[in-house]
């Protein structure tokens, strides 16, 4: 029998990390319980929600195939970009070091990892399209044969997505250019239907249009799957070549980053887990962020110095800043829509909560200075101003940015919707300010307090894990509460105050304990 060094090395690694039979049984038990307690109810809830006439109407609308095709194009674009951060060829740092720097071919060393990712992606995409197909078939909009074809379409989409993902890992720069090209082509095909038949998302749209009719001929619909399947096969055959192009530094860097991020996430330190993937500034180094000029220590001059410093600092990661600004702008539009509610309701509350979380996420690139001020406040004095002054100086930039961005977007969207702008502007600005407050509170959070490691025994089990989870995402939870209530200020002003109190209280408590180890 032929000796395969990569397989032997992986066997040694797997043997050293083998789980006992009881561990495997427990993992199986957890898997079954997860399926019963979480997966099955979620699928059922999705099915029930998707079976509503409004949703079915959207799925069989004439524009649905085009939108569906463009969504798939978006998925492939995302996969291309994701590969540069975390590709499918990924093993543990030790294995990556040993295998990537050996004489083994990439396909023998990392092929298994790519296959595993391909399987996961394909199962997910097949499940998603199969779900849509079966849903439409069960309501008479599709034959069950066509529903099966929908599932096959999902498999093809998954294969292409995996190859796009690997392309991003093998050639990040080329993948970026390719992603831009795909986005432009998607825009062109959305505007000009004549272009669509020459694009993969156009074939998907054509398949959907042909299949989504009870009287449709399945053969006509399946005809559109042929070029897609041919594409998928051709791309899949490139996998060994793409894998051989992945650089050792990329493999090692991605492996180390993923390991670090996983450790943080496992410890429920989600901020650190995400920051492992945060882009570092590389541009604008020649632009001076600090221009002392004739400023000195006077109050107003320092405010100007810090606002300018934070603004230039933010522009040094332009992509991140643009994404953040987009998030705040989108949140303002959603808040405007939510504030038009004639009366309080769950759906509009959820919309407001989502908008607030979006604003909170968008504020990330605007609050680097706030995080630095919080770090300095917990350390030895470095600047010639007090901790509180430093925090306020660094808060000036995100506060002014969020007021301008959310105010303008709320005003524009209010005028577009034909409603009076003052209320939406006030609402969006308040949510923005609360978002800054939540960011400050998050920055002052510090490490997990030891007291949260204490078990909380209950008849349902130990609840300390749930408490630690809530602690780790408390910024998101608190801002979501504010967002859910604030757009309904006209109906229930007292609740708005109640929703803001925990956010302020948590921030104040963390500030007062900023120098203590157990925050």
């Amino acid at each position: 029998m032929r000796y395969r060094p990569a397989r032997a090395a992986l066997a040694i690694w797997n043997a050293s990390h083998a789980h006992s039979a009881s561990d495997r049984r427990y993992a199986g038990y957890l898997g079954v319980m997860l399926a019963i307690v979480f997966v099955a109810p979620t699928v059922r809830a999705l099915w029930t929600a998707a079976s509503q006439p409004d949703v079915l109407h959207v799925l069989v609308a004439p524009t649905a195939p085009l939108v569906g095709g463009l969504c798939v194009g978006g998925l492939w674009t995302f996969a291309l970009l994701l590969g540069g951060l975390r590709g499918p060829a990924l093993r543990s740092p030790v294995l990556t070091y040993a295998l990537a720097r050996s004489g083994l071919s990439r396909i023998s060393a990392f092929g298994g990892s790519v296959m595993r990712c391909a399987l996961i992606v394909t199962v997910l995409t097949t499940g998603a399209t199969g779900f849509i197909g079966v849903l439409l078939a069960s309501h008479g909009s599709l034959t069950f044969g066509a529903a099966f074809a929908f599932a096959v379409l999902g498999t093809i989409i998954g294969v292409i997505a995996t190859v796009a993902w690997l392309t991003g890992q093998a050639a990040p720069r080329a993948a970026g250019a390719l992603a831009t090209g795909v986005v432009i082509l998607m825009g062109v095909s959305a505007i000009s239907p004549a272009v669509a038949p020459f694009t993969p998302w156009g074939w998907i749209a054509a398949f959907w249009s042909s299949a989504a009719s009870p009287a449709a001929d399945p053969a006509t619909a399946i005809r559109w799957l042929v070029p897609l399947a041919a594409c998928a096969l051709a791309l899949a055959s490139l996998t060994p070549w793409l894998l051989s192009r992945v650089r050792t530094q990329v493999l090692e860097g991605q492996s180390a980053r993923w390991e670090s991020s996983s450790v943080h996430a496992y410890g429920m330190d989600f901020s650190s887990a995400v920051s492992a993937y945060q882009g570092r500034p590389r541009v604008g180094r020649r632009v001076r962020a600090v221009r002392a000029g004739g400023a000195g220590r006077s109050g107003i001059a320092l405010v100007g110095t810090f606002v300018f410093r934070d603004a230039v600092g933010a522009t040094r990661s332009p992509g991140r800043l643009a994404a953040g600004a987009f998030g705040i702008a989108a949140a303002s539009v959603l808040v405007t829509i939510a504030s038009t509610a004639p009366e309080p309701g769950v759906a509009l509350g959820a919309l407001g909560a989502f908008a607030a979380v979006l604003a909170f996420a968008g504020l990330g690139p605007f609050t680097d200075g706030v995080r630095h001020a919080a770090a300095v406040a917990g350390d030895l004095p470095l600047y010639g101003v007090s901790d509180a002054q430093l925090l306020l100086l660094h808060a000036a930039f995100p506060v002014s940015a969020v007021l301008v961005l959310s105010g303008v977007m709320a005003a524009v969207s209010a005028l577009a919707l034909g409603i009076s702008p003052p209320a939406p502007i006030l609402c969006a600005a308040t949510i923005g300010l609360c978002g800054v407050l939540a960011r400050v509170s998050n920055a002052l959070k510090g490490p997990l307090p030891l007291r949260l490691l204490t078990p909380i025994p209950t008849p349902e089990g130990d609840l300390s894990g749930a408490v630690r989870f809530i602690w780790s995402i408390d910024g998101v939870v608190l801002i979501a509460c504010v967002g859910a209530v604030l757009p309904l200020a006209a109906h229930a002003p007292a609740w708005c105050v109640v929703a803001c109190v925990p956010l302020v209280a948590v921030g104040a408590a963390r500030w007062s304990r900023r120098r203590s180890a157990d925050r």
Partner: protein
Amino acid sequence: MIVVQDAEVRERELTLLPATSFEAGAGDAVVVRGANGAGKSTLLRLLAGMRSPSSGTVRVAGRPVDSRDPRTRRSMAAMIGLPPMAPDLTVRDHVLLVATTWSASGQDAERLAGQVLDELGLHPLATRYPHELSSGQTQLFGLALVLARPCDALVLDEPEQRLDADRLELVVAAVDRRRRAGATVVVATHSDPIEAGLGGGTLRLQGVA
């Protein structure tokens, strides 16, 4: 300037710093030496106001040390571990920002920042971001941030970490310049060149084995 009288730090039944006393006036240098765990960093934490002694007293400029007191903040510059570094500022930006918050005018800040970058040989790295520095360069950058502010007392914990011999000479010269300008310098170190370069008295901590 600095008066430490029978200062002791205990953590339950552990003694982190045995009773220690010393005095240092303006322009004096005290080099603190001792084996790992002898209490060098703990002593510096007392001086910087990061913790209080379990018994005894620590006074700087005649006052108990409290890092929240503006007078203490003004008089005491300390580096115990690396200071927090803003990831979005270049070396020059960051040193200038620190100097700006301490200086009476922008010109003073520019002059001070330029002087510190010169002293530590950081000008060639002025436009680099913190993540683009080597570990030794990061140590120098941390020292530059602390030296970019005026002080009456300078407290440094093992400033020699990760530095080559040439950079170490630059650091010794920069610290000694501040001592000669009137600052009280307390440095915990394992480095003979630092002890020889700064002169002054040496405080040997024995620890509690």
